[in-house]
């Protein structure tokens, strides 16, 4: 079970959060291969992984997490605007 530091609320148990994965980056119109990748392909690295979580049973805020998928170590959490958390 992970302990995740919400940039707004501080360290909380994983059960308060929902994993959002890599998230989407909508490609420009007309980029059909880009659209296919958006639908079905996501980063899936072994090692540091930039993902998003939402504090769904808390402040309901999404935020960035960098987590090592081989150790589950959380390397950083940041607000969506890139700021360090105040918590």
């Amino acid at each position: 079970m992970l302990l995740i530091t919400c940039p707004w609320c501080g360290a909380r148990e994983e059960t308060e959060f929902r994993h959002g994965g890599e998230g989407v980056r909508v490609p420009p119109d007309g980029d059909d291969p880009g659209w296919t990748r958006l639908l079905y392909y996501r980063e899936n690295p072994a090692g540091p992984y930039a993902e998003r979580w939402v504090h769904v049973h808390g402040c309901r805020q999404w935020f960035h997490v960098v987590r090592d998928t081989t150790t589950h170590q959380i390397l950083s959490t940041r607000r969506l605007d890139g700021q360090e958390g105040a918590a």
Partner: protein
Amino acid sequence: MRRLPAGGDIDRSRPLRFRYDGRALTGFTGDTLASALLGAGVDVIGTSVSLGRPRGIISAGLEESSGFAQVARAGATEPLVRMSTLPLYAGLEAEGGSRIVKGYLRDGPDDGRFDKRFAHCDLLVVGAGPAGLAAALLASRAGARVMLVEADVVAGGALLRDADTVDGQPAAAWVSNASATLHNSGTLVLTSATAAVALDQNGMIVAQRIGANRAVSEAGGLPEQRLWHVRARAIILATGALERPIVFQDNDRPGIMLTGAARAYLRRFALAPDRGLVFTATDDGYRAALDWHAAGVVVPGIVDPRAASTGDLPARARAAGLRLFAESVVEGTSADGSGRLCTARVRGPRGVVEVECDVLAVSGGFEPTLGLHQQLRGATRYDARLGAAVPATPLPGQWIAGAANGCMTTRDALADGARAAREALRSCGIDVPGTACPTPESPALLEGAHEVIWRVVAPDGDESRSFVDLHRDTTVSGLVRAVGAGIGHIEHVKRYTLVGTGVEQGRSAKTNAGAITASLTGRPVADVGTSGSRPPTEPLTFRILSGRAQGPMYEPVRTTALHESHAALGAIFEPAAQWMRASRYPRAGETLRETVHRESLAVRGAVGIVDVSTLGKIDVRGPDATWFLDRLYANDVGRVAVGKARYSALCHLDGSLLDDGVVIRIAEQRYFVTTSTGHAATVVEWMEEWLQTEWPERRVWVTPVTERFSTIAIAGPTARALVARLAPAMEVGNAEFPFLAVRHGTVAGVEGAQVARVSFSGELAYEVSVPWALGPIIWRAALTQGEDLGVTPYGLDTLQALRIEKGYIIVGQDTEALSTPYDAGLGWMISAKKDFVGRRTLDRRASQRDGRQQLVGIAAADRETCLVEGCALVRAPGESPQSIEGHITSGCWSATLGRHVGLALVAGGRRRHGETLYATLGDSGAQVTVVDPVHYDAVGARRDG
């Protein structure tokens, strides 16, 4: 063994009666089940798993690989409870025999209570032996919040069996003083508490036996067991070391135990053999002989494979006149008629001697307990001195101390515990000056070099009785067979021989299994290693994982404000997502179909009321609310006028339907959005995700308000009359209040009620929303004031029938995971003018392929034919295999049409209206006709009227 007339930590003034395998026996307060059995002369506790060999107790603690029992408890029965850490209590009932290796489960009442707790601390210390106590003492003196957990019944670890002194006091006395100091300083000390599962980010699952260690009558209100979720800023693993047995022929006889166990039984429980032989490869094993000798037990000798140890303990043994069999091993044993040990065969430089003994204490040395470290993939390295794995580097936030860290003497363990505590506290920002908290001192002991010995080769070559894993009956012969089959990797050996798969996960068998495999394959022990450990470190009773979340508390039940009102009307309820909703309101003697028939006709012919409070409701507001909803919903919600509603749908990025609902524009910059019951939370999260991650610059606020409003739909041709009575100040005529209009006003005296002309039944309908708690006022008023209009409450069953007649879908029931709005007959809704989430996929050819599964209506051929949801639709019933055209997604008895009708997904279905198909679950088929999904009032005259 026999009980000595005095000594031990038992209370002889408080005898306890218990039963083992039906025999009435007596022990003392302070005993464990294991010590009580030994004290009662029960040396043979049961038989082994596959060979049926008699077995006894091996250890006095966590090393136990033989002594497990089925224990009756609270009307239930628990399999495979470890005897050596189960405190004896009055009336304890246990079964051994074959139950030492295989338990049983029994259904029936179970009054036991299991709880969970959550704890946070600066420092969690696992293990209350010398290192753990030293660490906890130092940390608590430094002002840290400390938690100390000990798996055994009492704190102390190795100090409880050792004759050493600490800070000038006898070890046991120092332990009680230390425990008292910790208790007084507010440190939470848990005993009989196993740190079972190591979690990421310094979490620990700790399983504690509390009430389960006492008689039910004495457990009071205590739970049997408690599961602790602990989060610590730093963790010290002071989990100690386990003593390793040595493998030799017939090494499993009752009476053969570990040297630490022999000492613990003597010191703590006053149990001693008549003649106690010791077989040890390290100095530490000499302690058993010295302790026995001091207690007056006959010690026929100490068998030591080493030439001569220069250590202090062997010197003391020599001084005491004890016989030493140097350069010798025990190569076999013999037993009496009941299977108990009676002699050991000692082979030395001058040949073989048979030595009479009733207990043989064995020690292959001690090895660190590293299960928790290994659970999180902590690295280890092979230590040739110990002949076992030691930690390489601790994991972040963790420290390993004492015997677990390879510091095997009391003196070293105390110092290492203090060292670890200082380092751990420093990581928490707490600096402890060296002078502030002195490290407990214990006299130094000169130790001779260990001999690492795993196995004594059987003199006659028969190693089918040389046991590596007592619990699984794995022998050296089994390992020989595995290696002979070409197997080299220790994990394959484990899986081929089952070594290490027992209830204790082969804790005391693993190193021997790896080392013997190495010797059989001619490889270095370090290369072979040991099989991995998987969590938990100790078996956890299933119920401790569920805690109180059983039965009614398994998952929260949500009820609407009208729940009692429904119940008072005799409603039958059903789960819908987490809610309980009223299915129907049967009258006495009515069948299900009769109830639905009556309720349906009431709605179609007069007026019905239904509780739809569980529909999700979301308040969306802000300067960009219109823009935002336009980006998410498929149709032009932005063009909805204030005071109007529009039916719409949401798509995933891949164009599949996520949910449908009604968007009401309350004000220029404010919307009230409904969702289906099951998708309420999903849609809120969906909105927040897009808003926060894609369009953070947009000024929109999304608030879930499902439980702020009770919503009651009033539907039927006389609904207008009823609403007029309930809201006399509201203009309810079709001109003033047309379909899809929304008004606010006073309803049944409730001010500020929202009334929306939306319909899920196809009838003239008004959905009235009022503050949650006031729902019953509207409900009661509607029932009272509508009595002469024929008002009838209806439930989900009728709601379903009415919406199926009208071809209204439920997303998730009438759609599949990949169904698009086109597939669901909602293509009309898709705006040609704008982009929205999913649009680009919908524009792709695959999304509009002709043969996709498309929504149709189906009508049964006659009055008797029932349309079962889930049925396949085929061309030729009774044939198999054949291709499947589609399936029934919804079916109901239509009171209005006098036969069953339904909705279905059919390949290319939109162009197949009029076709005959057969509905089947795989055998006989019922004839149906593919029709338009709207079975009733296709022009919508009733709804709009």
